[in-house]
């Protein structure tokens, strides 16, 4: 980024006004904007001009909601507002975890929690009726991607890959090995916080977003889900044309990969919608449309190619406009009723680029014939009447007893959902 700045400064000086014109249409801000074509009415999809407002009918004052970096006091967490289907219960399982996002579970029961802005990875342990939270990594650039395998925690940040060996026995003095030179990550910032997991094939899967809202990308580098051996060798692209996936899991029966993907901003309040996608066994490496084709076959109006949606794998389900569909895990437990088995829970963090807020919940996705249908599961974080939210679910994680943990980035909290007469975790 720094060297890019210098280079572009020199370039700008040389190109004078031309370069200025390139930089100027920036309103909402994405690093990609300046890489876009500079002429024509559709040069910049994020141009917050009146023309754009007329086109998208969106308020230009929409802006991402800032997630607090501070501890939310327990009494401010509005547990009583959360709604789940009859027979289910919700309790506050852990809190005081600012920025809590992606979760992964160690073999000995530690719940590791990644973050973005605050740069930390936390370890939450269950100590007979209460939880203890420790910071095991800090000062990192958006350590959102976590994977656990064979005693080691893998932490994938924007620019680094770290391995913490034997971590569950060393929570007080973690040994961090930087394996960035083995796990090749592209140099980009925007949309490049990662999601990671180790697959049934014992390979490390990493989602690498597109460094922009909508732009031409190098499909060999960005906008993909890739896998590689744990030593970094043998990189393969599993899905391409992916705008920004921050959640995937493998179907317990078919072992196929399912992933969420976020649709573009500033194209209107109603979409293109976020996606739930399936990588069919015989179609690894398939193209999911970005940047030419969004959602259920919506051709992009700025990055055009003939037959924008030809050869593009369509979503298994639409996840809602600007919903922020993120963490996804299949449910394999037996605590919940049988109808939940082998369905997926998906956390929707909630919209920012939409006047009437949408999402802020956890939905259940029931798969059938390569498609999926959605049912609300955990709601109450959004009050549609006042268009205000108090919580933002980001990830879900099943516990061995079949209960479901849900992380809430807004409140730095983790909730536990149980069914029936299951005992509360907190004494």
């Amino acid at each position, binding site marked *: 980024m720094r060297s890019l700045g210098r280079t572009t400064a020199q370039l700008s000086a040389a190109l004078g006004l031309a370069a200025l014109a390139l*930089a100027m249409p*920036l309103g909402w801000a994405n690093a990609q904007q300046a890489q876009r074509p500079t002429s024509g009415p559709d040069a910049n999809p994020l141009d917050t001009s009146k023309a754009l407002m007329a086109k998208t009918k969106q308020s230009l004052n929409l802006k991402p909601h800032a997630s607090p970096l501070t501890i939310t006091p327990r009494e401010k967490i509005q547990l009583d507002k959360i709604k789940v289907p009859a027979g289910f219960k919700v309790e506050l399982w852990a809190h005081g975890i600012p920025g809590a996002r992606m979760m992964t579970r160690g073999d000995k029961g530690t719940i590791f929690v990644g973050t973005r802005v605050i740069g930390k990875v936390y370890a939450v342990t269950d100590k007979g009726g209460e939880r203890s939270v420790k910071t095991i990594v800090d000062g990192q650039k958006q350590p959102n991607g976590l994977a656990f395998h064979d005693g080691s925690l893998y932490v994938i940040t924007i620019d680094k890959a770290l391995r913490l060996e034997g971590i569950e026995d060393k929570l007080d003095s973690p040994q961090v090995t930087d394996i960035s030179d083995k796990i090749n990550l592209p140099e980009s910032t925007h949309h490049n916080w990662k999601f990671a997991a180790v697959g049934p094939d014992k390979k490390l899967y990493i989602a690498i977003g597109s460094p922009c809202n909508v732009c031409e990308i190098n499909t060999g580098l960005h906008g993909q889900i890739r896998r590689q051996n744990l030593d970094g060798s043998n990189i393969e692209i599993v899905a391409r044309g992916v705008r920004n996936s921050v959640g995937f899991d493998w179907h317990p029966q078919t072992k196929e990969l399912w992933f969420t993907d976020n649709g573009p901003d500033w194209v209107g309040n109603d979409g293109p919608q976020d996606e739930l996608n399936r990588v069919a066994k015989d179609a690894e490496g398939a193209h999911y449309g970005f940047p030419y084709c969004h959602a259920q076959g919506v051709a992009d109006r700025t990055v055009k190619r003939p037959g924008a949606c030809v050869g593009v794998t369509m979503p298994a389900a639409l996840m809602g406009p600007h919903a922020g569909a993120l963490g996804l895990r299949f449910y394999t437990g037996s605590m919940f009723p049988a109808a939940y088995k082998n369905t997926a829970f998906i956390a929707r963090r909630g919209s920012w680029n939409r006047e009437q807020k949408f999402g802020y919940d956890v939905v259940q996705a029931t798969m059938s014939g390569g498609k999926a249908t959605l049912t609300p599961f955990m709601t109450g974080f959004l009050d549609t009447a006042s268009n205000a939210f108090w919580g933002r679910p980001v990830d879900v994680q099943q516990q061995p007893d079949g209960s479901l943990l849900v992380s809430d980035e807004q409140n730095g909290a983790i909730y536990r959902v149980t069914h029936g007469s299951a005992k509360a975790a907190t004494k």
Partner: protein
Amino acid sequence: MSLMAFLNKWRRSQALALAIGAAICAAAWTGTPAAETLEERVQVCGGCHGEDGNSKMENTPSLAGQPALFLTNQLILMREKLRPVEAMEPFVKGLKDDEIVALAEHYAKLKPGSGPEPGSESLDQAAVARGAELVKQMHCGSCHKAGFEGQEQMPRLVPQRIDYLVKSLTEYRDGKRYGIDTSMNGVMYQVRNADIRALAHYLGSLR
């Protein structure tokens, strides 16, 4: 050159101004055993950021009337070494969340300065005019609001020191600083030095 003439010349130089500034800050800090209450902390901060939160020190931002969330976020980013500012390190180290929030709320309530913003350079009217154009083209008011008073995580830009505006806009462009997302890095991508100066002069000219 007499010693006085030499010293006067030297005093005018930015380097010395900065050195004196740092010395004052250090004195303010070491003179206070350990700032443990909000009042004590505010006294320490005032050494550089101005007693009333309106900075008279080069490259040091005014804090008066900044949105509390913006100040909270920045102090936490500094504490976590995600926004490394050497001069701030001793002050943010070990600060607890509620102590940071208290500081942020204190400065958010202070009245922004009303006089001409002290800066290291006087207003260049050509730059001011150019800046006025740029601010429209770049839609700065979308997030920072039409009067540039800021909101939530987005800082107040008026009033602010010109030298500090140049410093922080340059840092955003060069990827040396991030907000709580990457928006400002995108906005400042490829903006020339002369235009950064124009933006700063325009914003610095507003009251």
